[in-house]
């Protein structure tokens, strides 16, 4: 079965990935086997880290870049939402947080994450389990302007941000604190396809 997203250990010792159940796509044969999370070392050693009952067949896992923890969704919510759960790889502790529609994205500090709920982008924290509207994406005073996540992170602080409106599309460099620097502005139906590099 396909391995999902693969993340390197920051010290290059191993990767972590999740493995979907063998029979997942054969409903008549699938008996609820768990999704497995594996740690694969560069010397060939493999270690089963966790087994999870996913929210839905094929539901993903979002690893923090430091590989201390990951998000997944389980099925303890109603109305098709998934319970956002935080799994600590060191302690194997599983912490349910709240119901969401989709997995959030980690912020590079590995302490915060972004997600959308009821049309509003939020910034959550795993440190104190708080969240607040992320206004650099919500543009609360101008409903004509829409951000186009996912965010392309360039460093711990900066990300590329596409903002669309009826009048224009802009490519920006932004921070979560709301510092937005416009790189270019185009017609609304021809947003730039961009890449970046940071050399020091």
């Amino acid at each position, binding site marked *: 079965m396909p*391995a999902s997203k693969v993340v390197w250990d920051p010290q290059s010792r191993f990767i972590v*990935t999740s493995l979907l159940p063998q029979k997942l796509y054969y409903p008549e044969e699938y008996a609820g086997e768990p999704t497995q999370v594996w740690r*694969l070392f560069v010397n060939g050693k493999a270690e089963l880290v966790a087994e999870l009952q996913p929210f839905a067949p094929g539901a993903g896992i979002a690893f923090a870049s430091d590989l201390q923890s990951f998000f997944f969704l389980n099925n303890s919510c109603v109305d098709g939402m998934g319970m956002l759960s935080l799994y600590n790889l060191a302690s194997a502790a599983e912490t349910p947080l709240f119901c969401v529609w989709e997995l959030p994205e980690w912020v590079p500090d590995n302490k915060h994450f972004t997600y959308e709920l009821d049309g509003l982008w939020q910034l959550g924290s795993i440190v104190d389990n708080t969240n607040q509207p992320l206004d650099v994406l919500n543009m609360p*005073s101008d409903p004509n302007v829409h951000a186009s996540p996912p965010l392309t992170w360039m460093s711990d602080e900066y990300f590329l941000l596409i903002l669309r409106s009826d009048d224009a599309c802009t490519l920006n460099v932004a921070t979560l604190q*709301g510092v937005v620097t*416009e790189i*270019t*502005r185009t017609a609304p139906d021809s947003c730039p396809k961009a890449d970046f*590099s*940071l050399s020091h």
Partner: protein
Amino acid sequence: MKTKIIVSSILLLLAACTAPSTVVSSPTALHPTPSATVTPSSAATLTATTTSPAPTPAFTSALLPDGLVVAYIVNDELWVWKENHAQLLIQRQNIFDPLLSDDGQWLIFKQWHLGEVVSEEVWVMQTDGSKLHRLLGPNELRSLADEETLLLANDISWLPGRHELLFNTQELIAGPPGSRPIFDLYSLDLSGQITRLADPGQGGKVLFLTQWIICCHGDRFENRCSKFGKREATNPT
């Protein structure tokens, strides 16, 4: 023959899906503006809505990371933005996927060509606009396989910290739905020298970290790790 028909259909479908938009817009809107820090119209009314210690929107300064280079394509124009200045590098039809080297000195992009069979080329140039040349095209791909085999360049990316690229190809076969793609893996330097790193069926999507690379087979759990600097590479025949 049947294979060629299927391949052509796939390529045409891909071309239709990925061709840049041809919508004509007002000329003024298409010209990149010099870099400027802007305050979105929403900024004036942004206020923190909770007392959370998480970041609070401020819109106060115009900081940019050091050494930032941004490459982007708009309406068949390839632009590079650096040091607060946007420069038009080239204007060509059907270009897409700009990709900068780590140090921002080099840039590759792809270009579709519509012919008997739709083909894709990879071009490279310096971000000052010089040294534009083709790196990879149908001729180079044909040299990697026998005459009966059709290859598509499936993925291409810069090696971290080097002016060298990795790419894999996918052999196009006429098979039932769910057939396993056959990937291999090559390195490519800026002179166009191609070196085979993994044989057909042994390559896959490549993930980097420092000197290690990993090829992830799309349908197998066994992942392969190899140390790039110590690989035993052979030139393709």
